[in-house]
């Protein structure tokens, strides 16, 4: 009896939390849509969405509608999903590698993606048929497999995996620099540079479809693995003695994060800091157990990224800063605050 009531209460709390966090993400997305060279009131944004869903039929300014639907809404939603995916991947990496400094790019995925991108843009690999994104995706997975090979598959252990990731990052970054300096012209170098620092410019609905599908589909197995991630707290051997199939869990979780990260990197470039910091901030808020931590990371990551995207557009008038610059500029003071608070609380 008490158990049923407890379960019902827990379910109620979960629903309330989902509605609240969904509302919060919706709000920052709506705010993000309203901000720009052409300011759009919040009510217009909301009406535009409800009109589309058939819930209302408010007469709206055609230009406003075009800006909302063709540019800003897709951009804000892509930012939200990228933030969620990166924060989720970061939390999983930190748990699996048992390292607080681990983040989604620790296995060399961003370095591989950049090599793939320059190979397409500068060397013209794929003869024009392959897009920058596809090249980056291929590069990201090349780096991932290189790390897997170097760390001796799944038997390597956490430290060895991290070292292999560092080696792969160095190698692929060197390859990128080599190609850029020997073959690139100034414009190409600038394009690649901008992409490397991360940018939501040019993302539209196809990108949204892709990233929402990938992150959404990866979230479910990640949540199913939440308890397994908890079991890794005392290391691989402790997890094995609790009955975890360590090799299988590591492969599955590394692959899930690799798919999410590679998709995001190939779409919007390397956006640092989110995957490192958001999991820590979320841990301060909801504790270290992954059944709560993973959803919290997804929500906090989404909100953080949309806010960072807003900042990237308004910090300097008439100019858009690379998003990676903003996440670090906004993220570091925020993280310092969290660290400071935590120090006092304990």
């Amino acid at each position, binding site marked *: 009896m008490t*158990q049923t009531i407890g*379960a019902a209460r827990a379910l109620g709390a979960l629903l309330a939390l989902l509605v609240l966090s969904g509302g919060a993400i919706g709000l920052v997305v709506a705010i993000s849509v309203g901000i720009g060279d052409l300011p759009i009131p919040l009510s217009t944004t909301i009406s535009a969405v409800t009109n589309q869903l058939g819930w209302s039929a408010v007469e709206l300014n055609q230009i406003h509608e075009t800006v909302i639907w063709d540019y800003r809404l897709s951009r804000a939603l892509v930012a939200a999903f990228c933030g969620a995916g990166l924060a989720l991947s970061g939390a999983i990496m930190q*748990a699996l590698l*048992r390292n*607080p400094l681990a983040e989604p790019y620790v296995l060399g995925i961003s370095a591989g993606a950049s090599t793939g991108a320059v190979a397409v843009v500068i060397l013209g690999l794929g003869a024009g048929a392959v897009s920058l994104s596809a090249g980056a995706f291929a590069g990201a997975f090349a780096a991932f497999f290189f790390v897997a090979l170097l760390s001796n598959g799944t038997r390597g252990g956490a430290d060895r995996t991290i070292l292999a990731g560092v080696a792969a990052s160095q190698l692929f970054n060197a390859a990128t620099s080599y190609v850029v300096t020997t073959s690139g012209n100034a414009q190409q170098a600038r394009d690649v540079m901008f992409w490397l620092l991360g940018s939501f410019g040019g993302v539209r609905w196809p990108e949204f479809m892709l990233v929402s599908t990938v992150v959404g589909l990866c979230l479910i197995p990640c949540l*199913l693995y939440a*308890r397994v991630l*908890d*079991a890794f*707290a*005392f*290391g691989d*051997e*402790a997890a*094995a*003695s*609790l*009955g*975890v*199939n360590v090799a299988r869990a590591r492969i599955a979780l590394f692959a899930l994060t690799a798919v999410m990260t590679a998709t995001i990197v190939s779409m919007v470039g390397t956006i640092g800091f989110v995957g490192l910091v958001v999991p820590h901030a979320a*841990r301060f808020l909801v504790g*270290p*157990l992954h059944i709560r931590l993973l959803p919290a990371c997804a929500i906090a990551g989404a909100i953080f990224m949309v806010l960072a995207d807003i900042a990237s557009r308004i910090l300097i008038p008439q100019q858009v800063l690379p998003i990676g610059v903003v996440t670090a500029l906004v993220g570091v003071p925020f993280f310092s605050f969290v660290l400071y608070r935590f120090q006092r609380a*304990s």
Partner: protein
Amino acid sequence: MSITADNLVWKIGKRTVLDGVSLRAEPGRLLGLLGPNGSGKTSLLRLLGGLKTPSAGRITLDGRDIGEVGRRALAKRVAFVEQHATTNVNLRVIDVVKLGRFPHRSMFSGWSEADEVAVEEALERAGMGEKRNDFWQSLSGGEKQRVHIARALAQSPRELILDEPTNHLDIQHQIGLLRLVAGLPVTSVVALHDLNHAAMFCDHLIVLQNGRVAAAGTPEEVLTEALLRDVFSVKARVERSMHHGRPHIHYLG
């Protein structure tokens, strides 16, 4: 008969770590594993816990080959306490103990009455009930070891394997911990360094030397002056303690 090992051989590369080790752990008894550094104690425990697979020989649980028992099924009955396993995750004591229920829960199942009972009992036995909400990082070495034992007990094991659980503990906690383990209603295999503690608390002893069994039997049979000289390279006198009746070792300079 609970755990038996038959002619175990384990090689890492070309090095033979264990060579023809056989043992049998009697139900409900405490089996002590002794031997100098590098004699293969930890390796043997890992094989017994199913964490590694022997190169040759076999391990059975109630007559069944351990390799045929699934990972999760094994974790339901054999619990393993590693040598100073620690974490940088800021878990509470209760969360660590709850990890012990992992093998008993499926991916979708919620927290059951049985889980709750097992965790409460484990906390109680290990004497960590009052510290249930303390953070891992705030615990002393002895308390951490007790939490690990509570986590292991929450697995509701019939066999408990401990790798030098008294390392780095002060004497009060060493004795307290061994008394706790000796009083548990499970079959235990414990690697120990302190020979006098082994003599006091263990029902049977096995001494390893260079990966082979140098001696096996009751503490009285095993802990002889000749063995201390040959295996541990120390001069000592062994006599029956007038206080607890078990062998007591006086080391000579």
